[in-house]
């Protein structure tokens, strides 16, 4: 199993953690993003995620590279699921192994913030009464301000 992946299969957090080399690690932080049953006052029925897969995978790899620059001792795995997901299912799993917990928490937080900024994946929300494409950030990996913002949130 690769450390970064875009997949239609249900995410197996245990398998993803097992892939991490935890030699010398004292902590693994695991973040799960779940399909929430409500959004902006709407009752969400399910989400259908779409990706530009080759570029999305490159985006995850770029995030892993950026995290390594900031936290050289952290080992990171990022798997994002696409396709239809029901309420409560995991859409993303981030696992960060580190000698100490602070860097594991920070790197995993950084990764989810950067996913929301630069990875070409879109949520199609089906709610009680209709459906809508969710549109967040204009993706630009070269936007230094966005990257600094993600670092600031991660290290807060």
């Amino acid at each position, binding site marked *: 199993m690769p450390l970064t992946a875009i997949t239609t299969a249900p995410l197996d957090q245990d398998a993803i953690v097992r892939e991490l080399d935890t030699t010398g690690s004292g902590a693994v932080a695991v973040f799960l993003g779940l399909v929430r049953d409500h959004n902006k006052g709407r009752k969400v029925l399910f989400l259908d995620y779409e990706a530009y897969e080759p*570029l999305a995978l490159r985006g995850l790899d770029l995030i892993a590279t950026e995290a390594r620059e900031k936290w050289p001792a952290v080992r990171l795995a990022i798997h994002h699921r696409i396709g239809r997901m029901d309420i409560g299912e995991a859409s993303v799993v981030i696992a960060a192994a580190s000698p100490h917990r602070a860097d594991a928490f920070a790197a995993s937080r950084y990764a989810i913030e950067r996913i929301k900024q630069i990875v070409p994946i*879109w949520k199609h929300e089906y709610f009680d009464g209709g459906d809508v494409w969710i549109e967040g950030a*204009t993706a630009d990996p070269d936007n230094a301000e966005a990257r600094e913002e993600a670092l600031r949130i991660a290290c807060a």
Partner: protein
Amino acid sequence: MRVTVRLFARLRDIAGTGELTRDAPAGANVGAVWSSLVADFPELSAYEKSISCAVNADYSRFTATVADGDEVAFLPPVSGG
């Protein structure tokens, strides 16, 4: 020359397809490809300021020149996670 255009999410809905081919003059840039799409699908113009673009699955700029056979993708604001 001819390029393949990829559209995603709401852009795909507007155009009614996620993939189409466009003819472009030699030396055309990504912005020119986008303009030709907007001419056919005026609703796309709302995304002028908020989209990103990619050439051959790598982030690019509207000023980048495209070549015959390139895959040019237009990406509305992303919402992964």
